[in-house]
């Protein structure tokens, strides 16, 4: 029984098929890498799963319940949380504020309880703040919590993006190129953390250009090209397939 099941997902922009009849099963606890050249539909796939786009055709099941057609917030509430390819921030908020206003899904208490600041809310709030601080410490941005998020360096903004996704209590984490714009050490730091997230039982779907990252962290890889799935399997095997090399480097014409 796969945790996340994509059946014949097609996404058309006008007549252009960004995704064409994609079938994909994601098992619980795996770290699935999605690779492919620019414009192959990787980000569209994440946008479709997270509800940012509705698929033109096909259905998505999560825990064998249909989620395609739901709003992004409903999908996030079910436990599928994403990060963004470009740094999407709460403009003008500090790092801590961003985390606190992004952590609504962590709270068990209602807005009424929060308004009247009941005992239950205060206990709940303490737990959430504790978790926020813990996450910020894990991702090395705890020292900058009072800085505006927009003032962080690119790499740290990406880390903030990942912590924001993690505070929303994900069962499936969709990471859209988490290491772009990072140097080698920072990228490896993120890789280690993705591994840790995976070990905590969170299923991860990871889009990445950096092959080192994919080979290092993914348990399975799917290759997309022009909106089609052209290969699937263990990272080492997939990387040596002729279609994949072709898609990345072009055809041999000698």
């Amino acid at each position, binding site marked *: 029984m796969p945790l996340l099941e994509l059946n014949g997902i097609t996404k058309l922009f006008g007549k252009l098929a960004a995704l064409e009849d994609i079938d994909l099963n994601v098992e619980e606890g795996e770290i699935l890498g999605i690779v492919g050249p620019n414009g192959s539909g990787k980000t569209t796939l994440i946008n479709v799963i*997270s509800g*940012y786009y509705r698929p033109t055709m096909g259905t998505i099941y999560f825990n064998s319940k249909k989620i395609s057609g739901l*709003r*992004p*917030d*409903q999908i*996030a*509430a079910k436990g599928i*949380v*994403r990060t*963004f390819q470009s740094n*999407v*921030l*709460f*403009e*003008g*908020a*500090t790092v801590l*504020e961003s985390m*606190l*206003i*992004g*952590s*609504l*899904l962590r*709270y068990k208490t209602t*807005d009424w309880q*929060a*308004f009247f*600041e009941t005992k239950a*809310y205060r206990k709940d*709030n303490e737990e959430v703040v504790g978790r926020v601080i813990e996450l910020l410490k894990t991702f090395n941005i705890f020292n*900058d919590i009072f*800085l*505006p998020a*927009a*003032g*962080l*360096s*690119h*790499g*740290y903004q990406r880390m903030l993006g990942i912590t*924001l996704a993690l505070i*929303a209590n994900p069962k499936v984490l969709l990471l859209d190129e988490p290491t772009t714009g990072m140097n080698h050490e920072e990228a490896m730091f993120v890789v280690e953390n993705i591994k840790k997230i995976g070990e905590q039982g969170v299923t991860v779907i990871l889009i990445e250009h950096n092959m080192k990252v994919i080979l290092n962290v993914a348990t399975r890889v799917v290759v997309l090209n022009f909106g089609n799935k052209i290969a699937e399997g263990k990272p080492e095997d997939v990387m040596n397939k002729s279609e994949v090399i072709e898609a990345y480097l072009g055809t041999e014409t000698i």
Partner: protein
Amino acid sequence: MPYFDYKTWIPRIVIGVLIAIFVILPVFTTSVITLSIFISSGIWTIAVMGFTLVLRTGQFSMGQAAFMALGAYASAILTVNLGMPFWPSFLLSGIISGIIALIIGLIVLRVGGIYFSIITLAFGELVRIFAQEAEGITRGVRGIIPPTPPTISLLGFDINFAAGNPVPYYYFMIILVAITAIIFWRIEHSRIGGTFASLALNQTLAEHQGIHLMKYRVIAFTIAGVFTGFAGAFYANFLSIITPFMFGLWQSIQIMMMSVVGGISSIVGGALIGATILYTLGIYLSRLPIYNIQYVVFGTVVVLVLLFLPKGTGLVDLWGKFWRKVFREPDEYEIPEESEMAVE
């Protein structure tokens, strides 16, 4: 804290003294003009708080005065045409205004943004035109004269809402503004305030963090509708007349201007400062022999505030700036441009 934290307590004490002065103002003066200016300022403060709350969710309402009209007409029609006593009709006025805000919100806030502004603009005019044309219900341009609130006997005193005695209305205003301010303050500083802000800061990210856009936009708009309705009902009773011209497009624009001039960085503080200053200014300017000079001055004030106090900080931000100057503290939230983190 083991020591007296003067940096937070001195500003608080100053605010406390200012509030106390406002509360006992009728002891010093019973001048109808002075008290009337403060009563009207208080009414506009409530409307501005509603507008700013909606603005906090990233939505720009251009028809807030319509909810004052709804509250005013609801209370007047309930008492005059249907013979309901004053207090229940007053309570119902806010609820009716809120229900209409809820309905409008459910229809329009699905898309939000510029469409919301346009529809609220149209709605504002629709309410005014309806009030003007539906003579059977609203008596059209002749207006309705709402009955004065009944005399309340409290601790042996008779609180008499007779015309020409603004003191009871003044205290009614103080209580109404205080209740609204406390509720809006709690909203702003509790979790739901952060949720509202997230919608304005980044709608897409907020949605992917599990925040239901529609729901929170509608909540903010409905709360604003309820309290703006109360303000309108009270205004009508205070002026003892309701006409369609009291709550038109200009009044909606005036609410926006008050919000901008006061500043949106604090809902309650910005509304109090913006409404009081602009309303008082408007009254004194309209007594000058130059026709409509107040519109020119209002426009100039808005431009000056936007030039020198941008990003919605408004006049309320000067309060914080003043105390930071006094205590020789650096301004908050300055991005250190040359720091390691910012450049790298």
